[in-house]
């Protein structure tokens, strides 16, 4: 298989998925329900991406109290009101500390 043919088709697919939805939804007038639906997309998608990484980091269920990921996320949520950078820093520091402590 020629790698550059693969790269070409992957580029087309990735770009098409992103571009078509952006252009289609730019050109139509959206109903109130659709607008509300789309306004929830960021929170929904980012929450679903985070879920397994926080509660099932090894791919299976375990007690969250024993997970460095859980404590780091909790600290991030609590510090989030003081700004993104302090929250991210605190979350990563807690995660690495928890990891070093054997969580």
């Amino acid at each position, binding site marked *: *298989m020629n*790698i*550059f*043919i*693969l*790269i*070409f*088709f*992957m*580029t087309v*697919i*990735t*770009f098409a*998925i*992103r*571009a*078509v*939805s*952006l*252009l*289609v*939804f*730019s050109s139509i007038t959206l109903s109130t*329900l659709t*607008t*509300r*639906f*789309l306004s*929830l*997309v*960021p*929170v*929904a*998608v*980012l*929450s*679903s*991406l*985070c*879920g*397994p*990484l*926080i*509660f*099932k*980091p090894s*791919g299976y269920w375990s007690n969250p109290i024993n997970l460095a*990921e859980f404590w780091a*996320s909790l600290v*991030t*949520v609590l510090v*989030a*009101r003081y700004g*993104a*950078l302090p*929250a*991210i820093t*605190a*979350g990563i520091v807690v995660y690495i500390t928890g*990891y070093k402590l054997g969580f």
Partner: protein
Amino acid sequence: MDTSPDSVKAGIRDIFPMLLGTAPFGLIFGSLVLETGLGTIGGQSFSIFVFGGASQFVAVNLYGNGATIVIILIATFFINLRHALYGASLAPKLETQKSRERLLMSFFLTDEAFAVVSRFKLVKSRYFWGAAGAMYCNWQICTLLGIILGSQFEFNASLNIGFFMVPAFLAIIIPQMNKLILINCGMISLFLSLFMMDFPYQSGFMIAALLGITIALIFDYYISKVTRTSGRR
């Protein structure tokens, strides 16, 4: 937040924490490229043209295992399908940009760029290009470093590298969750994703998000209906 700042610098500043989170992925991808025999140009071309993060990893792994081009392309399609939601969600926020610019913007629409710009009701071009451009440059540099330094990067396997993005995503979505419907939506999507994480080609994330939104909207509809009914009494 209503309108994003009209500044490249603000975009770079806001995405900066994400750059730190994605750097290990770029480095690992670069070193993975060498292991699968794609070569420097092939590996870097992946990052330059595809710019797809997770889909790049899956494609390189499948390529290394001898999968056919059709299988790799199907995987790419499903992994990137959630970006259709990003495009749809972002479209109303880019109403001041021309179609040609929006088309170009869609190429740079990654998880991280979307997380940063989606906080605003209206996104200014400079802000988008600052955030998305910084993300793109960071990904290229990290891929190249991974290719050059290769096996010198030894990440501890038990350290969950994927988690480094979580504090960044949480720090962005938590301040947005200021209404009951948003809290419900986030909690339901997160909960459902735990049961759908093993779905093929990461499709579970998108299904969990779609179901989360739908359930939150239905819940909100009934709450407002009950509130209206009790208000009339």
